């Protein structure tokens, strides 16, 4: 009855504004978001730059223990460590932009190359873990929303509680013990294909590449090796997906427009598809995308347990070897991926929701 207290509820202008104004509006929006993206990436690179300088050991380690002071100074100059800090940062930034993440002292190859070889392994693991999560988290989440006290709700919440309570790396060990040692159903936790030859490289996803090359047995082996690590990781990604599905679907179910649709005798299937799921989907899709971006850096421990040759394992090995450039390369990359996905998700959100798009 009364106006909300800050912004008057004057309805917006009719749609169908002239074409170029819409494009201009979108232009401003995209520039705004891109500026934000660049700002966040700068901040991220500042953090990693700070870390590289704070380690303070590159010189000492690079030159070796018995080095004389002159050798250390010469090395320092070569590495440009004597330049003022901001100049070092701009060099660091230029290197980054050129994709030069420094050289790994363990593999003696450029860090960016190491990462490029290992990123697909992590990406494949994360993708399958999310697929596994979606298999149960979505249906159970929807069912739990419709029958809050029902069977699905109890199972879903139980699995979610289990997933949150059980550390992933420990669960991995348990699964290995049960399914490899005791039952022998799954392979030893030694990488992605064991000794089966790799399929020709197309995407870096062994499953996809094997299918593209028609090597069905390699595809099955790849799946066989993927199973345990993907299931382990899915216990981390599934609980939030289950919970957000349940809460956003039940929110839509309790809404007036669903009550209105049902009062007009609209078929249940249509009510679910066009009213409930259409409104409940955006938050779920956002979370799944963010989870993907997050797990790229979050699968570290599962990779260690299953010696899965991804960027997580690479970072941990580099850590043990004090190979800081490699570590920071991985940290930077996963942050960039996360922020990039965040940007895309934000954009898709605007496209899907007329309240944001049409205004």
């Amino acid at each position, binding site marked *: 009855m009364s*106006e909300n207290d800050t912004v008057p509820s004057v309805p917006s202008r009719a749609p169908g504004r002239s074409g170029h104004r819409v494009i201009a509006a*979108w232009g401003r929006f995209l520039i705004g978001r891109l500026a934000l993206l660049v700002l966040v990436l700068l901040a991220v690179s500042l953090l990693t730059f700070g870390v590289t300088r704070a380690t303070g050991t590159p010189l000492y380690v690079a030159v070796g223990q018995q080095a004389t002071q002159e050798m250390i100074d010469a090395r320092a100059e070569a590495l440009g460590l004597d330049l003022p800090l901001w100049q070092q940062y701009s060099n660091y930034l230029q290197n980054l932009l050129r994709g030069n993440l420094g050289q790994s002292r363990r593999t003696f190859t450029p860090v960016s190359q190491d990462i490029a070889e290992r990123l697909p392994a992590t990406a494949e693991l994360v993708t399958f873990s999310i697929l596994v999560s979606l298999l149960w988290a979505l249906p159970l989440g929807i069912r739990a929303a419709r029958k809050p006290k029902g069977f699905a709700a109890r199972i879903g919440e139980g699995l979610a509680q289990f997933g949150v309570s059980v550390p992933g790396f420990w669960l991995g060990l348990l699964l290995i013990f049960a399914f490899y040692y005791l039952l022998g159903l799954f392979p030893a936790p030694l990488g992605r294909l064991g000794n089966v030859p790799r399929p020709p490289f197309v995407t870096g996803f062994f499953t996809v590449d094997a299918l593209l090359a028609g090597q069905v047995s390699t595809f099955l082996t790849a799946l066989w090796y993927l199973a345990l690590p993907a299931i382990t990781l899915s216990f981390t990604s599934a609980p939030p997906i289950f919970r957000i599905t349940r809460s956003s679907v039940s929110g839509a179910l309790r809404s007036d427009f669903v009550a209105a649709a049902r009062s007009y005798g609209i078929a249940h299937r249509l009510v679910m598809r066009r009213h409930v799921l259409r409104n409940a989907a955006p938050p779920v899709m956002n979370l799944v995308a963010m989870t993907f971006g997050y797990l790229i850096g979050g699968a570290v421990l599962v990779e260690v347990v299953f010696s899965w040759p991804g960027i997580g394992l690479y970072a941990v090995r580099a850590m043990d070897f004090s190979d800081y450039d490699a570590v920071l390369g991985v940290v930077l990359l996963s942050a960039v991926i996360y922020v990039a996905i965040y940007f895309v998700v934000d954009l898709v959100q605007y496209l899907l929701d007329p309240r944001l798009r049409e205004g």
Partner: protein
Amino acid sequence: MAEPVLSVRDLHMTYRVRRSIGAVEEVRGVDGVSFDVPTGTTVGIVGESGSGKSTIGRCVLGLTRPTGGEIQLLGTRIDSLSARQLRPHRRHMQMVFQMPRRSFDPLLTVRRSVEQPLRRLRSELDADARATRVAEVLEAVKLGDDLWDRRPGELSGGQLQRAAIARALAPEPALVFLDEPTSALDMSVRGEILGLLMDLKDRVDAAFAFVSHDLEAVRAVADELVVLYLGQVVEQGPAGRVFADPRHPYTQALLAAGRFETDGVTLGPRGDQEPASGCRLAPRCPFAEPRCRELQELRPLQDELGLARCWKATETVDA
């Protein structure tokens, strides 16, 4: 004429509303509103949603900062003061909100909430003086003393609104600003609060501002009336006159609608576009003429009957 307790001069409040991607629209919530509230009188401020009436209250009480104009409380200008500078003036003005249940901290008892304004605004009072003052105002609003030490959750809407009025009166303010005090109450409770306000009006020497879209309620308590449309004052004057002989077409339509008369002035549907210049009601007004496009000033009506912002209202007087 004594200095008015509250005087608002040419108050402006513009919002930057983000309509859609990148399209930010400037909405003039309050667009040049002026009125006075002398002591001992109740000024009714009426208007529909989007008229800016609640925003004016928030500006007067320093809860939001207006983008233009002047607000004077007891002769001193308060709209440009910082929160710290405003604090000593707060004891002279208090507010009653629309939703009684939301205007009380659920964790505090009624007594503690009513005492809160005294602690800070009347720090010269010691604990006992505060306690007696709290008892005084709670009795004045006829709230059963068995409820004083209860939490808001255990009181009804009507009882809570009584307590809210007591809290507002506690520091003996010169101005009590009531923002839609009866709109959230049931019919049966509305009368109870209006009756209380009518009693207090005579017994308490303070100025009252009563904002509402419920014309019947305003009519029962208001001495003066200010009618708002889309952030502008369209008519102003003694309540009796305005209710009996409304001059501005919008006021006529509003009063007719309030009495469920369809034969009176009726307005066209509420369009989207606001006219750039001239009378904002023009797109909906049955008497609209080309000259409505020119800037309509608030012009005085004959012998202190008030003001109206429409050539038609003041023309019959001049002709």
